[in-house]
């Protein structure tokens, strides 16, 4: 039996479904300010998510990984809730589509044309990279 003093609740909610709900000993994810890892009894924190991989560590079980794009996280000592606009399991990702998206975004960034929305292209590129990274 896992050590109860280390276990906290993790919930990932998207607009369409409750994506994931379980217990964990540690969770890692990307925020706008950089990557963070959260253990139990973290100080209460609300932070903005950046596109990235969420890794949920469990005691004595394999890690669970998923891709999460935009949203925010609410961290409480006993519970971490990620409110994500999009969340995907590795097997849900269409690698070919992600590769095409990566190419498109890179071309747009390289073209340096006035009409290119750099922020948007960069975000698209990051999303594509995260998808490809996790699908491996």
């Amino acid at each position, binding site marked *: 039996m896992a050590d109860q003093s280390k276990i906290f609740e993790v919930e990932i909610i998207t607009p369409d479904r409750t994506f994931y709900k379980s217990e964990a000993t540690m969770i890692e994810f990307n925020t706008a300010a950089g990557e963070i890892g959260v253990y139990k009894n973290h100080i209460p*924190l609300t932070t903005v998510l950046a596109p990235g991989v969420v890794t949920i560590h469990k005691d004595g079980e394999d890690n669970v990984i998923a891709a999460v794009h935009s949203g925010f996280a609410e961290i409480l000592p006993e519970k971490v809730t990620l409110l994500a*606009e999009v969340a995907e399991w590795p097997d849900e990702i269409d690698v070919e589509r992600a590769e095409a998206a990566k190419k498109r975004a890179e071309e747009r960034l390289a073209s340096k044309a006035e009409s290119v929305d750099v922020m948007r292209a960069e975000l698209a590129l990051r999303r594509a990279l995260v998808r490809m990274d996790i699908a491996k």
Partner: protein
Amino acid sequence: MASMRDIKRRKSSIQSTQQITKAMKLVSTVKLQKARTRAEQTNPYTNHMYQTIRSMLTKSGNVNHPYLVSGESAKKAVVAITSNRGLAGGYNSNIVKLVANSGLPMEEVEIYAIGNKGQDAFIRRGYHIKHSDSSLIEAPTYAEAAALCKQVLDAYTNGEIGEIYLAYTHFKNTVVHEPTLIKLLPVEIDTTEPEEPAGPTAQMVYEPNEEEALDMIIPKYITSLFYGALVEAVASENGARMQAMDSATSNAEDIISDLTLKYNRARQGAITQELTEIIAGASAIS
């Protein structure tokens, strides 16, 4: 008294109408079940979003954030969610009436119409339609809700509109659907009710900082409300249609039994008359 043939014709016409309403009822029952599961699945997201926003605003108090104070423009945007198809009882007209009786002056209202039926009704009443998107209601996705939200928020930040309202039908359960009008922006959340978990949320820290977090989270909050409203509206539409078609079917049933009675009486009358004629004829000969 109507002739037997007339009654028979009327009866068969009502019977075929009844078949149609029966089929429509079945179709909307199936659609309702689908829409309802979707509406239930979005609930946790919307609820959690609301809780977070509320606790943020309770804590931050009177932050002078653009989303929290009324814009200068007197224009008010009303996003009205109705259906593309009729035959749903009072579903569409309830939304239109709700907006018309809300006390918002007609000259100041800019309608963002989702759904053909509502759009037509608003035009008839003389409202100004700023934007209309009727495809959205067919199968609402979060991305589409986000696009709509961005458009409305842009108009708000540009100063074109000063307030944003949302009119939709709240899906309470299969038989109860409430037309609802809520004010989205400036955000007005009742911060007076006591916060239940006063412990951990009270010392919540925000990253990067409160202002930027609000900047990020409020649009997401509005989008989630839009999406939730769209999904609930679809469920309500099908629920309303199911009810309307159910009562249409039972009305048809009533009329048919009434007509059957009339038809039998007329038939009996005709037979009696014929008999009398034959008997009269026979007695005349003898």
